[in-house]
């Protein structure tokens, strides 16, 4: 719930001043900028709240790479390394930043071992 209520978490209806296109996740999509992209679910039509931690698709498909939180974290020793990233239009890779550079979310995970809860 902390993550959902965080001001950086967005529910988007539009993009670049227009309405959201189908391929960008119309009618409604989530943006969680400090997590890996697949956590920003597209084409949301229903939201339900559960009292237990649910399974997630990628967590089931490849638990070694994709944990429940899937915060951007270069320090987790993943099967496919996420220590560096290539940005659009850049040739050289650059080191990936913790929480994708959004340090203001770190407080939500204080006291958590993020190498385990990745």
């Amino acid at each position, binding site marked *: 719930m902390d993550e959902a209520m965080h001001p950086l978490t967005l529910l988007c209806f539009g993009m670049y001043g227009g309405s959201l296109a189908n391929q960008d996740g119309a009618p409604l999509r989530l943006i969680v900028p400090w997590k890996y992209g697949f956590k920003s679910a597209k084409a949301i039509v229903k939201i339900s709240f559960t009292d237990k931690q649910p399974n997630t698709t990628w967590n089931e*498909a*490849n638990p070694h*790479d994709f944990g429940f939180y899937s915060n951007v974290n270069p320090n987790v*020793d993943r*099967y*496919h*390394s996420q*220590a*560096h990233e*290539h940005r*659009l*239009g850049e*040739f*050289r*890779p650059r080191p990936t930043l913790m929480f994708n550079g959004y340090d203001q979310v770190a407080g939500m995970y204080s006291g958590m071992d993020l190498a385990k809860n990745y």
Partner: protein
Amino acid sequence: MIRIIKVVVFIVCLVPLGLLAWRFFGAHPSDMTNWGAGLGANPVEALEHGTGDWTLRFLLITLAITPLRKLLRMPALIKFRRMLGLFAFFYGCLHFTTYLWVDKFFNVHEILADIVKRKYITVGFLAFVLLVPLAVTSTAGWIRRLGGKRWQALHRLIYFSAIAGVIHYVWLVKADIHKPLEYGAILAALLAYRVIMWQRRSSAARSSLATLPRKIAIG
């Protein structure tokens, strides 16, 4: 005639590289800011997958030469085997270079960690390394120096390189293993042909051995 066909095959083998380069440099190669755009949102991945795919394809094509020339009764196909094998090595070099340069930017620490820790990289690296002695000894001079038997034994390493290449692909995909299994199925068929041929040849040799003493006795 063979010479002309060889030139044509050579050029055809370069087409995949040409297409990758075309997509990489785009319609306006002088505009450096646009490089890679033709390869989609993840040009690094497109280069790695493109060169990797073609390495495996050329390995399989090279391995298909012997079954094809026997089944189709086209012995002249053997004349293309070295070139195709060297193209497998060529695309393998491009694949490895893409990984070292574009993906890792020669970050030695990360590359060594990758080779030791990530099994799909370990086995991919093995597949590449196994091809090196084959490329080096691909000349007529080396066949003479090693002797036909030993040269042939050495070049059976291609079986292990191809197997390692397919395992590399199976282990690296995240969820959908359909594509790697397609390559695996073709490789399995090409290797099964060889196993069947060996069995036939050894049983033929055995039956001729069995008749040998009798002949000597008669003689």
